[in-house]
């Protein structure tokens, strides 16, 4: 295990004692700063708009971030393992949703959902194989794959959209338990499972180790390439889940349904503080990142800022998050 995220806070590096106060503050900020930012934002939001802290509005926020949150939970693994980025997220969302709704009348909804998720995991595995065995740049590999997959998905529906005919599953996704929407439970289940997989299994440790230092991990006998492939497969599967859930929610699937999700998911992961270069971060941090972006968007809506203008704020959040992250890391080290 590496870094300040998992182990105790150390004041020693290379045998020299650093100023403990600075290091402590830096390390604590590194570990808990992100949650404090979320709390601070919520406090600010409450002051700015009285309607922010109502149950209905808070539920709105979590419902609106659920889809991107599920995709971001999987993308976290790609970043953790040092895979940099998965640009296939939008096309995998579309492919999985289209395959699911297309096969639904013949094989039934449960099998269709499984088939859609399998498609996503399959695309992710192909990404992973090319990245791991050919050591190709993940950005360009997933870019090429997204063009291919988008074309294939589009050829199934001939460029049109396809509708959901199973009313039951649509109602289930839209339903609420204790007035909390089903998709939020699904999001929490994925984040919980992702966190457990990362922290409590050998595979999770391999992910962190591979991301931190692939060469050292290989030398210590880890199956580095398989770990990388699995990380990309996880990202493909979660993107598929997000796409299928989105299709059930809106009642149809089309090729452009996931447009922009890859960047929203990356924003959430980066704002959450997972390192771009792998080896440090967690799925629960990504959840906090998703919520931060969701809260900011919500506040802007409440303050009646146009939706189209929100990109400027999102851009500023990304820059701020990355700069703060770099500064705290530098202080800790």
């Amino acid at each position, binding site marked *: 295990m590496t870094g300040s995220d998992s182990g105790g806070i150390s004041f020693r590096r290379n045998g020299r004692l650093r100023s403990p106060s600075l290091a402590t503050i830096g390390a604590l900020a590194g570990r808990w700063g992100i949650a404090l930012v979320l709390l601070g934002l919520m406090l600010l939001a409450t002051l700015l708009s009285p309607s922010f802290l109502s149950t209905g509005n808070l539920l709105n926020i979590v419902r609106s971030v659920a889809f991107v949150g599920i995709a971001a939970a999987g993308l976290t693994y790609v970043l953790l393992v040092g895979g940099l980025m998965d640009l296939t997220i939008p096309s995998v969302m579309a492919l999985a949703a289209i395959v699911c709704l297309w096969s639904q009348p013949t094989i039934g909804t449960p099998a269709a959902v499984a088939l859609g998720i399998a498609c996503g995991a399959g695309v992710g595995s192909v990404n992973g194989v090319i990245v791991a065995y050919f050591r190709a740049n993940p950005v360009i590999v997933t870019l090429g*794959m997204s*063009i291919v*997959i988008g074309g294939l998905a589009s050829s199934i529906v001939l460029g049109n959209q396809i509708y959901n005919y199973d009313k039951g599953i649509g109602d289930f996704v839209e339903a609420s338990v204790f007035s909390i929407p089903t998709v939020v439970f699904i999001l929490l289940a994925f984040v919980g499972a992702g966190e457990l997989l990362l922290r409590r299994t050998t595979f999770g440790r391999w992910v962190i180790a591979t991301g931190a230092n692939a060469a050292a991990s290989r030398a210590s006998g880890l199956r580095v390439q398989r770990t990388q492939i699995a990380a990309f497969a996880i990202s493909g599967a979660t993107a598929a889940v997000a796409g299928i859930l989105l299709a059930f929610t809106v009642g149809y699937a089309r090729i452009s349904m996931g447009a922009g999700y890859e960047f929203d998911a990356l924003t959430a992961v980066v704002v959450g503080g997972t390192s771009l270069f792998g080896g440090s971060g967690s799925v629960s941090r990504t959840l906090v990142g998703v919520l931060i972006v969701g809260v900011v968007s919500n506040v802007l809506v409440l303050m009646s800022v146009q939706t*189209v203008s929100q990109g400027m704020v999102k851009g*500023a959040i990304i*820059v701020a998050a990355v700069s703060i992250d770099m500064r705290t890391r530098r202080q800790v080290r």
Partner: protein
Amino acid sequence: MNTRSIALRAVEYRIYFVLLAAILILAMVAPGFVAGSTLTSVLQGAAFNGLMGLGLTVVLIAGQLDLSLGSTVALSGMAAIGLQPFIGAPLAAVVGVSAGSLVGILNGVLVAFGRINGMIATLATMLGIRALALTITGSRPVVGVDLNFGLIVDQPILGPITLRIAAFLMLAIVVQYVLLNTNFGRNLYAIGGNVEAARLSGIRSDRHIFLAYVVSGTASGLAGTILALSLNTGSPNVDANTIIIVLAAVVVSGTSLAGGTGDAMRTVAGILLISTLVVGMNIMDVPSYYQSVSIGTILIAVILLDRVSLSYGMRSARLASARAMRHAARVSSLEPKDPPAHEASSAG
């Protein structure tokens, strides 16, 4: 030159062979492909993507990435058209191009001086600039008041060469010259190849990376201005696939995302390849989704070829260096130092 180095050189400049093969195959299978109108449509299509591709090439050679191209195109186009009623068409076009430079300056400041990862910084500016473009116009396209001014962009100057094609080819020549024959260009390759080595040899990498982004932003500004003038419309919505196609064309041509390789002429060939394929497949009535599948497949195939040839090349380089080390050991009859010095000092 032995066969191995010839093979490696052929892989390095493979884009010219791929382009030639694509033209030959299309000439055989697509009836009506061999025509003057094909050349015009290929070049017209290539010019817009090509201007962006040339800017992106400069950034990639320096080992960075620019995702904000599409948003920059939108902002520049809207400035070039939307400002026409206020300052006149020629000046508005200048402002359009300068808007691109400004985005480049912003990217450059964030990456070179703010030391934020290039992909993340330009992701942020991509989102921000697109939002700015949408906000200014209330998400509506703006229509120009001076229709005649826009017409000159697509007037033939010489044979099939229109002003926009001329702008593309001129920029290609300038970028090629700067990359290969100036200190700035050569330093970019050094930075992209190994930023630490470049720093140790006294190259100020931050200034070079900053300028690379300014070049990229200005080229996108030019592309956006030309596109908007030709349509007489500035649209805040850019086709999300634009950056994907441009990046694919540049990478297929042999410019590595890792930096340090590529040049403007190969980028021109890569852009021409994509444009030729699109025109050829349109002639053959291939549906657009199968066009995407084939272009994506070509991209992935070239990446795989790239990696396979690179590992082949590295193996031969390793063999050569092992031979050299054995030779050196024989000459000096010295054992290699063990353990290395830096490990010994950090162990205690």
